[in-house]
């Protein structure tokens, strides 16, 4: 449908201001950047052109503060098909299949309008993934809220969770896991990071690159409105005066339209019609057309009259900068327009040919019978300023003396009672029961059941080919698509991790730890860690301390990813997360993906059977610095975070995977927040089964230290485990046996699993109910 005819053919008076350096500054361009732009164009830009330059050179699109440092991250491995630079990263998972994934933040919008902010964040990341030809099969999210006592926190939790639930559930993509933490540093600036994992066949992966001159430029999806224009930075009296200008800058999501867009795109992608495709996310039509032009080394000429519009009298500036959701831009093979149109019309979506590619590397925009923009494309991307911002000296925290934080005699249970219901450990059931974790039918383990979510990989991204016949895929090519019943079915393991307190205390070690913990969580399920996406949430990079955090975290992260062969294949940088000069904790979230060849071998975290031996893999706990115990029981965030020994992470990770592969262990949980004590309690609660522990040790650091590279496993086959050669090289300690209704300690203390569950489950619902 094309409603161009309904729109006035002569330009209304848009009352656009004269372009001066001051107007440029309002758009976020500093004096040097403004001068550089004038130099590139060789004349004063039009209002539309200024808008395009400023948004392409914004931090969000150009990564101007982070790019120098991101370049240092490892992004390659033999199984990496596509690293950073496309809509999402791609890895090979065998059998001609690929996993495509990315994590992205929607922090500021979610603080302003939690429901729509979170919903469109989830919608945006799913679009990034299915733009590449992948069927999204799992979502996870990493949420950080302010202190529970802060007056806005409850409202924000409520809205964000409802928004995530609304969009993901309606799309029919299961939300299978994630993490939620609370800390006063997020009081004025919450974090909403959403990750989507999809699958595609190798020969059906689509990229933004690849377009050539004289090919049709096609717009599909929702109509363009005035929502989200130029994010929140735009300030222009002309727009503020009018009603249109007062619309909120947060976009409104429509998951139903996106579901249609998903199905229509995947249907189209079964045919050989698309040359290049880019979703319209941040900076909408501007960034999508510039990306396609730049990556193809071509130009694009658009007839903006032909863009499907939601409201009349839109200016070229508004059309180019709108962030209306659920839209895509694609370059089609010439002559395929009608066939493609038929598919989109079947799904009742707008489809419009809005221009053609050219050979002059210019972005040319025509509307109302005149040209509003004619600028060279390469400088928008290549000449975007890059800043080597100064990273100041970062003072690390001092070590602490463990002796000062000893446990009183016989206080293990009392300490556990305190820990198990603290906000970061308390069950997040209230949240994840609002997420459809089961749709598609391939979920093995979701939230609370294992260290990483386990989702079976369908045999074909077009689910209709997998399990039904019919008109959804009328021209299906059967053959390799049918399930191979003789072969075990593969599954993906997915997790998100970060300990921001560690990152603040020691950015290098914190960045390293986030990767190590992700690696551990994947290994704990028996899966092989393959690659990660990162979501780098930091404060204002123009401040030296923040830049030091950023550079430090990336250094640690890079080192860990290199050593663990766990490359970063996609990601997102979110800077300026501060309110009134108060920055958030540095929060570089790692979204990890692993592969397990046979889903039946995937391990849960809960105790499974009575009478099994519980084993600690790794050294005894000895490090209390920055532990959750210090924070919750002593009210202190002090000390150094635990050391990260990547060699041990590597060895023990592969050892755990080997035990899982041989079927020698029945459950596995990594030791992280709350140390061994909380780990054992979580295993007991998840399995609804107690244990009798035989360890004679009263040290706080033993029970609550968060030393790295450690796992707790259960087995009914201790003899065979000890007989393995690895048992000589890796320290293992028998902790006790599973069974009964209580967690019993060697000193005679005991607590019932029911009580633990009650304490653990009660905190969040009580908090949300205002109790």
């Amino acid at each position, binding site marked *: 449908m094309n409603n161009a005819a309904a729109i006035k053919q002569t330009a209304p008076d848009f009352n656009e201001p004269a372009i001066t350096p001051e107007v440029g500054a309002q758009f976020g361009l500093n004096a040097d950047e403004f001068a550089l732009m004038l130099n590139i164009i060789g004349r004063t830009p039009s209002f539309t052109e200024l808008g395009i330059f400023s948004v392409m050179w914004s931090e969000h699109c150009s990564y101007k503060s982070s790019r120098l440092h991101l370049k240092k991250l490892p992004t390659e491995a033999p199984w990496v098909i596509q690293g950073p630079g496309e809509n999402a990263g791609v890895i090979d998972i065998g059998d001609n299949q690929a996993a495509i994934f990315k994590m992205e933040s929607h922090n500021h919008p979610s603080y302003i309008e939690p429901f729509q902010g979170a919903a469109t964040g989830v919608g945006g990341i799913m679009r990034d993934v299915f733009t590449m030809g992948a069927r999204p099969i799992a979502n996870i999210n990493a949420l950080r809220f302010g202190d529970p006592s802060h007056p806005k926190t409850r409202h924000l939790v409520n809205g964000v969770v409802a928004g995530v639930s609304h969009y993901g*559930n309606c*799309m029919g993509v299961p939300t299978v896991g994630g993490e939620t933490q609370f800390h006063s540093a997020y009081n004025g600036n919450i974090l909403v990071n959403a990750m989507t994992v999809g699958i595609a066949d190798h020969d059906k992966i689509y990229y933004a690159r690849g377009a050539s001159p004289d090919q049709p430029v096609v717009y599909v999806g929702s109509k363009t409105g005035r929502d989200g224009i130029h994010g929140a930075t735009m300030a222009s009296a002309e727009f503020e005066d009018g009603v249109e200008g007062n619309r909120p800058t947060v976009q409104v999501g429509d998951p139903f339209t996106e579901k249609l867009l998903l199905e229509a795109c995947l249907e189209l992608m079964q045919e050989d019609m698309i040359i290049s495709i880019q979703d319209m996310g941040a900076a909408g039509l501007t960034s999508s057309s510039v990306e396609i032009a730049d990556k193809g080394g071509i130009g694009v000429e658009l007839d903006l009259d032909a863009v499907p519009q939601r409201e009349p009298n839109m200016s070229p500036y508004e059309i180019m900068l709108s962030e209306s959701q659920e839209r895509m831009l694609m370059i089609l093979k010439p002559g395929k327009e009608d066939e493609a149109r038929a598919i989109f019309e079947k799904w009742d979506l707008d489809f419009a040919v809005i221009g053609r590619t050219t050979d002059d590397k210019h972005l040319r925009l025509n509307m109302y019978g005149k040209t509003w923009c004619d600028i060279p494309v390469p400088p928008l991307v290549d000449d975007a300023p890059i800043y080597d911002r100064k990273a100041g000296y970062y003072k690390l925290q001092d070590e602490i003396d463990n002796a000062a934080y000893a446990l009183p005699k016989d206080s293990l249970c009392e300490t556990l009672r305190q820990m198990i219901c603290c906000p970061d450990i308390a069950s997040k059931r209230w949240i994840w029961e609002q997420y*459809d974790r089961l749709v598609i*039918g391939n979920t093995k383990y979701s939230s609370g059941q294992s260290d990483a979510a386990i989702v079976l990989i369908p045999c074909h991204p077009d689910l209709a080919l997998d399990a*039904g016949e019919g008109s959804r895929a009328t021209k299906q090519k059967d053959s390799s698509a049918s399930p191979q019943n003789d072969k075990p079915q593969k599954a993906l393991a997915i997790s998100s991790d970060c300990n921001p307190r560690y990152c603040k205390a020691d950015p290098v070690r914190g960045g390293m730890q986030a990767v190590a913990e992700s690696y551990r969580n994947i290994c704990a399920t028996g899966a092989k860690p393959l690659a990660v996406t990162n979501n780098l949430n930091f404060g204002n990079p123009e401040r030296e301390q923040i830049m030091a955090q950023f550079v430090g975290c990336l250094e640690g992260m890079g080192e860990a990813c290199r050593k663990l062969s766990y490359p970063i294949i996609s990601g997102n940088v979110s800077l300026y997360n501060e309110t009134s000069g108060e920055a958030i904790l540095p929060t570089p979230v790692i979204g990890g993906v692993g592969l397990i060849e046979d889903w039946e071998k995937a391990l849960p975290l809960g105790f499974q059977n009575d009478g099994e031996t519980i084993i600690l893999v790794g050294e005894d706990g000895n490090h209390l610095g920055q532990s959750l115990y210090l924070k919750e029981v002593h009210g202190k965030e002090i000390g150094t975070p635990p050391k990260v020994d990547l060699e041990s992470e590597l060895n023990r990770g592969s050892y755990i995977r080997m035990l899982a592969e041989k079927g020698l262990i029945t459950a596995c949980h990594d030791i992280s927040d709350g140390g061994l004590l909380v780990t054992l309690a979580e295993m007991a609660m998840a399995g609804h089964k107690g244990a009798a522990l035989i360890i004679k040790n009263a040290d706080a650091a033993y029970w609550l230290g968060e030393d790295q590279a450690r796992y707790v496993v259960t087995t009914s086959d201790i003899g065979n485990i000890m007989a393995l050669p690895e048992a000589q090289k890796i320290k293992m300690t028998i902790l006790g046996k599973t069974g009964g209704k209580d967690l019993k300690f060697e000193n005679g203390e005991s607590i019932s699993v029911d009580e633990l569950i009650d304490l653990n489950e009660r905190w969040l619902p009580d908090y949300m109910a205002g109790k």
Partner: protein
Amino acid sequence: MKTSIIVFPGTNREHDMAMAVETACGKKPQLVWHKDTDLGSPDLIILPGGFSYGDYLRCGAMAAHSPVMKEVIVAANKGTRILGVCNGFQMLIETQLLPGALLRNKTLKFICKDMHLRTENADTEFTRKLGKNSIINVPVAHGDGNYFANDDMVKDLEAHDQIAFRYCDAQGQITEAANANGSSANIAGILNKNKNILGMMPHPENATQNWQKNKTGLPLFESIMEALA
């Protein structure tokens, strides 16, 4: 034995349903696009879960007026077996093939969790293999699953053995605590008077595969497949 699963724009559990059908009878069902009016003369029509047309109006209300539904109603009145789950149940209510209404959950939130269901009527083609009072443990995933019928309607449903499933605890007790969405008389699923139509909010199709938490939903599919074989 032919099964047609109707796919509306916004339907999202057709794949889950197709897997369950294939597991129960070894034969792939046919997916019928909502714009088609040829159902393919099925023995069983399934209306699966999802958010048809976005469910921005009352859930299932738009789908109830879709062209394909006219054919479904004709088939239903001729005795063709119809299974509507979740959004499909909402459609059956909206077309008035089944009585009552489905309201917002009493929690006012979407609920996705495993629920115990007690089989109230095992003397139907859908429930024969489950057995009277047998308990199945299947997930719900809905925002509007709070079944409403007034006292007279509930009495009428009971009098005609139309209540197929009730929410119960693990021991089979019909308790308020087990009734997470607030349904009248703990009703989770109902039949029409002829017993050729079953509508239910919970998802038995998500309890049919080895990797799912349990397979207690499978006998429901096996029952209807056997009955129609």
